[in-house]
């Protein structure tokens, strides 16, 4: 049984200076009350950091060590933080101290990479050697199953993935569940017996080779055994490589999450750069259109003047044309060229012709020529103005320009954004992120290739086992002497292996049934919905809510998800080989008052030691005291000293 005795923090997050709390020796619940931004999640992270050297923020993202140094202390020149955890386990007393400080040569650290977190573990007052300390922590609380001891509402939400086989998280949680339930003890025994069986088969082959009657079969069996050894070696190596690759993938994802903000900025910069490039191409086309339209555009500036001049010229043309026509008609009448008046159509008599001649001014040929020249000039200018006005389209030009200007403004704006992003990008971040992305893609490719290789090797091993079995049967018919002894040894190993192999299946099934029964029992106590009859477990420990009419509830709310997850965690604690404290941060999420009350009442049964981090509104102290009664062992408050300074105070 793992128990937490005390936790001491030094400049860790909001907890400035040294701050410590001790937990009561008796079984029960300790509640920490803190409003938003006071440091409840930081307190949960203090346990995580001490045990595993990790700090997790919202969205399961790793938090930079640089940001975890208390800000006020950092302003005073502090460059490190530390968490000490006092524990007891299996009768031994432990003190785990983990310190984060700048790496050697990084006097002015600026980011996560500039820090290193070292730890040491004391058992019974003696510091353990590093390797032994690592093994001891792995034994006390393996990181793989930490999710069942240290969790928050967000982590509870992940259990829904157990219902779906196509998620990354589902299989990881299934493995963790089997780990906490102790299944690996049985699977390791089975694997040991498999190795013993392999050795026994080798000895049978050797014995067969020693006998004249069975030598040929013995040789063939020996070849198959050697082939199996090679294939098993390959398989082992590939599985190890796959495990390493997967671990590396998790680390890369972790790193990528930490650099998410930078990656988002880079992605935005690249997108904006592409957009600017596209806009530039558009602008070039629009500029070409404007350039073509600008050739006659000069007239657009003076279009009003041209129209006014055109009107005057048209008037002048009419004047000149009228004068020319009038002179021509009168001249014709006076000369008698035309006997009829063109206006009244009466014959113009001789007397009238004489009178007209008397009234006609003395027009010489020069005056008439001047008028005709002027008329020709006016007409030429009218034609020129008309021609220019026809080719000038100010409205179309304005549309072209406004479109062009809009594109230019868009480019300026996007370039401005790019410049702003560049200022936020630190020197090496781009290279690091691109490197991570390349490594991630390479990892995915290698993983797929290895998985294919493993499937192929497994196929060959099955084929090899088939051949060996047929040979063994033939050998059994010819058996005798030394081979009988080896055969009996092989049969024993085979029987034991089969038995353990089956027992793994049987035990797994029993565990599933026990988890289903316990989780159902907790669920019925936690939920306020009377129509829900319990939970049904699937092969991967996913839980489905069952209606009292026996049908599944296919969709469930975030609140229901919370209740199901808490039921699973409680059932796992009940059936776990390793039992320990539960530290839970804001477990109520979107749950209503009825569900909250039931959870508080049930909490003490989930583990011997419960640390509950809440804000007073979600669990008022009076209600906590009433619901927990004697099982509430101590209460603490996260007291605000400033926005960056919280102190622990016992109530």
């Amino acid at each position, binding site marked *: 049984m793992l128990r937490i005795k005390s936790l001491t923090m030094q400049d860790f997050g909001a907890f400035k200076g040294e701050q410590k709390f001790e937990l009561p020796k008796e079984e029960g619940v300790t509640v920490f009350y803190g409003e938003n931004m006071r440091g409840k999640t930081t307190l949960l992270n203090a346990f995580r950091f001490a045990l595993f050297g990790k700090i997790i923020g919202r969205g399961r993202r790793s938090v930079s060590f640089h940001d975890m140094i208390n800000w006020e202390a950092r302003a005073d020149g502090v460059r490190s933080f530390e968490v000490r955890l006092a524990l007891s386990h299996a009768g031994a007393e432990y003190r785990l101290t983990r310190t984060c400080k700048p790496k050697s040569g990084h006097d002015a650290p600026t980011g996560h990479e500039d820090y290193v977190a070292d730890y040491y573990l004391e058992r019974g007052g003696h510091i353990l050697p590093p390797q032994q300390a690592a093994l001891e922590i792995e034994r006390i609380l393996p990181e793989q199953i930490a999710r069942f001891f240290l969790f928050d509402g967000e982590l509870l939400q992940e259990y829904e993935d157990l219902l779906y086989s196509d998620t990354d998280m589902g299989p990881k949680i299934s493995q963790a569940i089997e780990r906490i339930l102790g299944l690996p003890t049985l699977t390791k025994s089975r694997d040991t017996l498999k190795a013993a069986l392999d050795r026994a088969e080798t000895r049978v082959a050797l014995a067969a080779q020693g006998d004249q009657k069975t030598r040929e079969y013995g040789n063939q069996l020996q070849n198959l055994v050697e082939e199996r050894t090679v294939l098993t070696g390959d398989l082992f190596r590939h599985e190890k490589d796959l495990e390493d690759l997967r671990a590396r993938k998790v680390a890369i994802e972790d790193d990528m999450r930490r650099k998410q903000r930078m990656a988002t900025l880079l992605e935005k910069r690249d997108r904006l750069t592409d957009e600017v490039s596209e806009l530039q191409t558009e602008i070039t086309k629009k*500029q070409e259109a*404007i*350039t*073509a339209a*600008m*050739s006659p*555009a*000069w*007239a*657009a*500036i*003076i279009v009003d*003047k*041209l129209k006014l*001049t*055109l009107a005057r*010229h048209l008037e002048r043309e009419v004047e000149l044309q009228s004068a020319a026509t009038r002179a021509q008609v009168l001249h014709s009448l006076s000369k008698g060229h035309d006997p009829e008046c063109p206006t009244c159509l009466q014959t113009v008599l001789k007397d009238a012709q004489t009178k007209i001649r008397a009234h006609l001014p003395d027009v010489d040929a020069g005056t008439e020529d001047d008028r005709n020249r002027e008329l020709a*000039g006016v007409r*030429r*200018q*009218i*034609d*020129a*103005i008309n*021609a*220019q006005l026809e080719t000038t389209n*100010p409205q179309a*030009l*304005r*549309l072209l*320009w*406004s*479109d062009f*200007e*809009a594109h230019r403004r868009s480019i300026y704006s996007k370039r401005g954004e790019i410049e702003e992003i560049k200022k936020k990008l630190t020197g090496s971040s781009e290279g690091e992120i691109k490197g991570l992305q390349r490594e991630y893609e390479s990892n995915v490719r290698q993983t797929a290739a290895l998985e294919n290789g493993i499937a192929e090797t497994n196929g060959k091993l099955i084929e090899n086992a088939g051949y060996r079995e047929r040979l063994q049967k033939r050998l059994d018919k010819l058996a005798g002497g030394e081979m009988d002894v080896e055969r009996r040894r092989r049969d024993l190993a085979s029987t034991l292996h089969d038995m353990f192999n089956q027992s793994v299946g049987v035990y797994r099934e029993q565990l599933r049934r026990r988890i289903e029964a316990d989780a159902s029992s907790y669920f019925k106590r936690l939920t306020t919905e009377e129509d829900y009859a319990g939970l049904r477990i699937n092969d991967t420990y996913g839980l489905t809510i069952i209606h009292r009419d026996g049908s599944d509830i296919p969709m469930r709310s975030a609140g229901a998800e919370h209740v199901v997850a808490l039921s699973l965690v409680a059932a796992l604690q009940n059936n776990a080989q390793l039992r320990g404290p539960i530290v839970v941060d804001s477990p109520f999420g979107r749950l209503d008052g009825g569900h909250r009350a039931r959870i508080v009442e049930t909490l003490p049964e989930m583990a011997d030691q419960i640390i509950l981090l809440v804000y007073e509104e979600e669990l008022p102290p009076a209600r906590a005291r009433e619901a927990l009664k004697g099982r509430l062992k101590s209460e603490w408050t996260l007291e605000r000293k400033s926005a960056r300074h919280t102190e622990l105070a016992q109530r």
Partner: protein
Amino acid sequence: MVIEKTADKRTIGITSGNESVLAALVEEGLFASEIDAAKFALAHAIDLEISRGTTEGAGTKWNVGSVDSDGTMKAIIQALYPGEAQPYRLIEHLMNEGLGRLKSEEGLPPDVAGILFKDNLEGVAQDSSS
């Protein structure tokens, strides 16, 4: 010399002081040629109602045939400036006057759009989209 002044020009020139403005206009990429830009400057001068005159020291840059191949510009100048006996000399003068007024003391590129559209372009864009 008197004969030269009374006969119209057969070539058109730009003063050395105005060459830089002409170059800046073309460099902006909005005009296909210096002639197009010079015509723009001419229209700007007309718009500003620059009075008739001659420009000294303009040198020789283009033949009038290159600037006004069909005589349209000459006819328009004669229409706008009645009785003008030396339209190409006036064209040269107006081009240089226009370029001189396009010069920016701050060294900024000439505001072609501002001259072309005396109102706001954005208003045009909104009108056209509605």
